[in-house]
């Protein structure tokens, strides 16, 4: 198993030094992605999932951000020790990233064909004509209708779904696409378009054996896409495991709460009230050394406030960070 890991994060700590104090955005995060699999990193705003993505890309804005410690191993090489120049050759080649709002990552004054062709010109040293022909090919691959015409469009002439397809085409144009990080790739899209994009991503991933790190807040998208799931809360990983284990046998009160909060959960088909998690996401500035979920957890005991729990294994790679994992009977 060990050598199958494409990317491995060990003990990652990221902080933001703001005027009001140090915000521990990610703490002691361990994570790995096998070749060809989809890992979903799921959590609500402020849980550190997007910061983790920026850390992998080494794009944490500094200042105020700072990667305090940890290793990010890509094929055994620590990305955090690379020079900026070495890192640039990895970004967009081995690791590519797509964002929630593709408009912000496409240059509005260039035609989309030129932007895709640019990738072929830099990474494959093709001439412009060849590269443009390749661009048409890529647009066809992501199922954009009439690609010969579309290459001449500017980003604003495309719909949100089409732009996201263009982003995916660019991400896949690199010579060695190994890992794609998708940060809320469908959150800004309509449901029917979201279904199309998710479908496309799954299909392409299968055909080129690429790993996918899917960052999302939507448990529905997770269920649809993921092989493995890591649940984050306020900078900490609280539960991780196989997608079936997480959905069918969740062991952390937060994961349970998250699933119960989904209006699409089967059990609300006819009944009214949701089983919501009470309270608000804690202020990261005021988090102590205990379990960050303690203030909202209905099963919390004094020990939860004092100490962040050690990992508990439930077999099949299902790990939980809760003092009472396995002891709690969820209603």
């Amino acid at each position: 198993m060990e050598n199958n890991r494409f990317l491995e994060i060990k003990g990652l700590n990221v902080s933001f030094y703001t005027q009001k104090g140090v915000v521990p955005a990610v703490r002691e995060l361990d994570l790995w992605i096998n070749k060809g699999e989809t890992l979903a990193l799921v959590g609500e705003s402020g849980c550190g999932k997007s910061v983790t993505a920026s850390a992998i890309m080494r794009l944490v804005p500094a200042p105020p951000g700072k990667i305090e410690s940890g290793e990010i191993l890509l094929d055994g090489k620590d990305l955090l020790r690379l020079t900026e120049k070495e890192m640039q050759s990895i970004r967009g080649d081995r690791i590519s990233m797509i964002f929630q709002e593709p408009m912000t990552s496409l240059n509005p004054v260039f035609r989309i064909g030129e932007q895709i062709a640019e990738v072929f010109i830099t990474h494959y040293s093709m001439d412009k004509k060849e590269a443009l022909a390749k661009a048409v090919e890529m647009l066809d691959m992501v199922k954009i209708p009439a690609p010969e015409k579309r290459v001449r469009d500017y980003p604003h002439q495309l719909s949100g779904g089409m732009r996201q397809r263009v982003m995916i085409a660019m991400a896949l144009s690199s010579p060695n696409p190994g890992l794609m990080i998708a940060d809320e790739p469908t959150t800004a899209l309509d449901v029917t378009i979201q279904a199309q994009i998710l479908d496309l991503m799954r299909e392409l991933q299968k055909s080129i054996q690429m790993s996918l790190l899917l960052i999302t807040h939507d448990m529905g998208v997770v269920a649809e896409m993921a092989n493995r799931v890591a649940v984050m809360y306020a900078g900490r990983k609280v539960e991780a495991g196989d997608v079936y284990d997480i959905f069918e046998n969740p062991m952390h009160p937060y994961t349970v709460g998250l699933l119960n909060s989904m209006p699409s959960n089967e059990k609300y088909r006819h009944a009214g009230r949701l089983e919501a998690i009470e309270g608000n996401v804690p202020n990261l500035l005021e988090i102590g050394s205990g379990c960050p979920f303690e203030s909202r957890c209905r099963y919390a005991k004094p020990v939860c406030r004092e100490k962040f729990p050690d990992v508990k294994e439930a077999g099949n790679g299902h790990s939980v960070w809760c003092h009472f994992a396995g002891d709690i009977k969820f209603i």
Partner: protein
Amino acid sequence: MEKILEVKNLKKHFEIKKEGMRSSGYHILKAVDGVSFDVYKGETLGIVGESGCGKSTLGKTLLNLQRKTEGEVIFEGKDISSLSDREMKAYRRRMQMIFQDPFSSLNPRKKISYLLTQPMRVNGLDKEFDLDERVDMLLDVVGLDRRYRNRYPHQFSGGQRQRIGIARALSLRPEFIVCDEAVSALDVSVQAQILNLLMDLQQKYGFTYVFIAHDLAVVELISDRIIVMYLGRIVEEASKAELIGSRLHPYTKALFEAFPDINPRNKREKKIVVGDVPSPINPPQGCHFNPRCPNAMPRCREEYPPLKEIAPGHKVSCWLYG
């Protein structure tokens, strides 16, 4: 059941300047294009649809926040859509709106106590109530600490701000509330709290809601009846149970199919509807859904199907059923 609101052939069109340097003149964007429905006292009517379907414009036109182009909105026997701002003021108290964005819908420079008392002051309720007491009461009702009254909006989280928005809407003791994507900007766990709060308040005070959202699951949870919109028109209308039991319009089916299921074993082969949502400026001829519809027939490209009652209370606008 008693009707509280009756909408008759409501239209809201916008003039959009044509793009390009050489062209002049306007396109007509038919955001809401001939919509009729009733809202009954004490119910929740859900309106669901994707971007550009006109659901938000419809909500604002219902409250006369945007002037209609044509049609009628009858609230307790009076067509409020043709009232002047002055005449409308008497109805503003009774019809309120909860907005989508909890960050931009509260004035950032005002304290919570100001935000909650302003509506009562401008509506002359300050003689009727002790405003201080009323702020405490409103904060209690929406589950916020009374001590928060002297804080500013930026000191709250999204969920707390949405509670403030709800408290503000309640300050005037309305009967009819339009919730425009009231939970879609919130985190899942907080969204559930706010949905519960809205349902509790309805039970307690007997509000009538028009609940507008793009999230089918949310709408199906909270609503008694549901309207599905596509490009400015109603394509299906039914009670919740009826709609869950039999989704008739191909678009309703597509919307439901596209919605991600939270059961990972259901990664079944789904029928995913193709194509983009067309621009509402230039909708397809005939039935607006025909270019994406798996069941499109020649007739669909020519004529827009009328909204027909198929079963009691279940209306659908599709040639498959006509």
